[in-house]
């Protein structure tokens, strides 16, 4: 089985689906000939032609809206928003349209589209290339929000999103595109090739949406994380010597409530970790869910470890 970085795994997912399903096509700013600024769509135009993988004008509203029209027609478009920080011009199309078309038309029309976007900090991008806007999507009924943390998950989850009959928001933690950064700034990031989850099958496989992954078992504390923070949480558990169970949520909506309840019922303690700013962040939702579902098992207040309510991750 080949070892892949997350970028290669995402590329492999798109390759697999373009090959399997003529209804799949992909486009975005610089996503065609050039293969995307992060190279996720590299060689796809060469292999499948410009009709299946092409460059889009710099207009996120237009990219999202035309994808909606294509999905309504019956295709399965996968669009790349170059940075999650650039998604806001598309926000109305995603929130008022993609999310609602099935409901408002009583399932007459559906929107099986996937919105891929790199998100998160840690790449010296300053405040315009580091945002974590997941809560702006998890709040919206009608959308599903997915965040992988490893190459293996990235491919399996992206394929699941493409095959899903509802619009999916697929956020890619760009800090771990090339290696599992774990927050230890004093040492170099080890390459994906040394990580077991970089073993990625060449062909087709899916990881079901809505299923979390227990990436570290433990008895004393449950850490809920997703994306880059999964690796940071694992390192923190190791460094602190705390017997923590780390759950990689993988899908934020619909979240795997059973996995959360099972773990917190066992450990009695819960820490939630995300990069996004704290106020009304997804951690607030998780805190409420844990409180509602696990109140009698809790031995300590639920804690959140999050970004500050400030706009800038340091470049």
């Amino acid at each position, binding site marked *: 089985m080949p070892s892949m970085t997350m970028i290669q795994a995402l590329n492999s997912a798109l390759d697999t689906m373009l090959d399997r399903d003529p209804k799949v096509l992909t486009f975005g700013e610089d996503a065609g000939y050039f293969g995307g600024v992060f190279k996720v769509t590299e060689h796809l135009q060469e292999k499948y032609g410009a009709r299946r993988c092409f460059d889009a004008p710099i207009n996120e509203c237009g990219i999202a809206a035309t994808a*909606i*029209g294509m999905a309504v027609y019956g295709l399965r478009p996968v669009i790349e928003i170059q940075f999650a920080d650039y998604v806001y011009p598309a926000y109305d199309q995603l929130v*008022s349209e993609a999310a609602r078309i099935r409901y*408002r038309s009583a399932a*007459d029309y559906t929107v099986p589209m996937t919105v891929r976007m790199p998100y998160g900090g840690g790449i010296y991008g300053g405040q315009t290339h580091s945002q974590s806007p997941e809560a702006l999507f998890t709040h919206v009924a009608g959308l599903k929000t997915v965040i992988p943390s490893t190459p293996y998950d990235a491919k399996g989850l992206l394929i699941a999103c493409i095959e899903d009959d509802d619009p999916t928001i697929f956020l890619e933690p760009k800090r771990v595109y090339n290696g599992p950064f774990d927050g230890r700034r004093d040492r170099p990031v080890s390459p994906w090739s040394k990580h077991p989850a970089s073993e990625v099958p060449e062909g087709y496989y899916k990881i079901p949406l809505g299923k979390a992954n227990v990436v570290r078992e433990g008895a004393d504390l449950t850490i809920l994380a997703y994306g880059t923070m999964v690796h940071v949480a694992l390192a923190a558990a190791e460094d602190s010597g705390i017997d923590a169970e780390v759950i990689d949520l993988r899908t934020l909506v619909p979240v795997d409530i059973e996995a959360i309840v099972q773990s917190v019922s066992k450990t009695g303690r819960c820490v939630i970790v995300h990069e996004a700013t704290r106020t009304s962040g997804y951690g607030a939702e998780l805190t409420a869910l844990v409180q509602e579902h696990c109140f009698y098992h809790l031995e300590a207040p639920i804690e959140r470890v999050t970004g500050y309510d400030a706009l800038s991750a340091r470049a």
Partner: protein
Amino acid sequence: MSPRKSNALELHIPAPRTRPGDKPDFSGWSFPEPGDTPRPDVDASAVEMREFAYGLIRVLDLKGAALGPWHPRLDAETLRRGLKYMALTRAFDDRMHRAQRQGKTSFYMQSFGEEAVAVAQTMALDRGDMCFPSYRQQGILIARDYPLVDMMHQIYSNAEDPMKGRQLPIMYSSKKDGFFTVSGNLATQVPQAVGWAMASAYSGDTRIAAAWLGEGSTAEGDFHAAMTFASVYRAPVIINVVNNQYAISSFQGIAGGENTTFAARGVGYGIASLRVDGNDFLAVYAATQWAAERARSNLGPTLIEHFTYRGGPHSTSDDPSRYRPADEAKAWPLGDPIARLKDHLISIGEWSEEEHKKLQEDCAEHVRTTGREAEKVGVLGVEGAHSRESMFQDVYKDMDWRLRAQHEEVES
């Protein structure tokens, strides 16, 4: 060097020439004569066609004669069908507007005065072509013989409402009739139509797309996204700007109409752009036919500005006497679309005043009977018209655990 002299800057806020209490005044406008505008070949380049964005395609004169190269030369049966659909649309609007006044529904929007746009265009398109309407194109459904009773069920949100009570009245959807679900967010449907057209071309299909929006919502970014993508990918789409002069209370100058035409928006995008008398059934039909043929021949999109007048209020929640002269509609220099097609049919000996009177009575009777049928099922506000479960369905293909739990909570 002498110091530069600077005048104080002045901010320009557009204002219409007339307000309530004034006499309607359209005297500043001039239009080409009917029949005077040439008809370019469908493969004419957008650059060669710039002048069409500033002119006005007219076929019918105000006495009912059809003139010039845009005359589509439709047979009398087709013309009578167009007349019937327009008359039925007007009768339906009249009935449903009054139904709102009687408290049977919360909201209604007439297309009074601009019926030719939706009806003539639908007739000029193929049955399989996909329509992405705004909220005032009920004429599309009517011209595709969608059951009036289902429109009424939707307006009444009753147990037979195909939208299950989820949509504001008049926001219909019918996939089998190529009618996209109407959105409340304006202009969003236009780039979606472009995407649908791109998908049709991608798939080697033969169907094209058409989208409608008001002149007011051309100011939305979505319209410009649509124009860019349509131009870049040469999408087989017709983008229709229905310039009915008003966006609720704002005259078209607030959307940029003081300085240029709305058809001229297409010039900068390199899109073939036509400006047409929207109250002239034949001109609208001919322009649509031209644009459809262009799209079907892989020659790309067309922008059409339909120059018309919103004869009624924006909606039942609006009172135009508060912002425009009360009798402005009657002074509209390009007349009424139904009267003009009627006059044409009479002038060619294919219709009479008696037949027209009978048509109007038949339409009124048809909507009256249909209205009773719909009201028997229920009007707005009847408890229990829709199951509680239906509130949780169709959010996703399958209900997730949250929706199942919330549904159970409501039922318990």
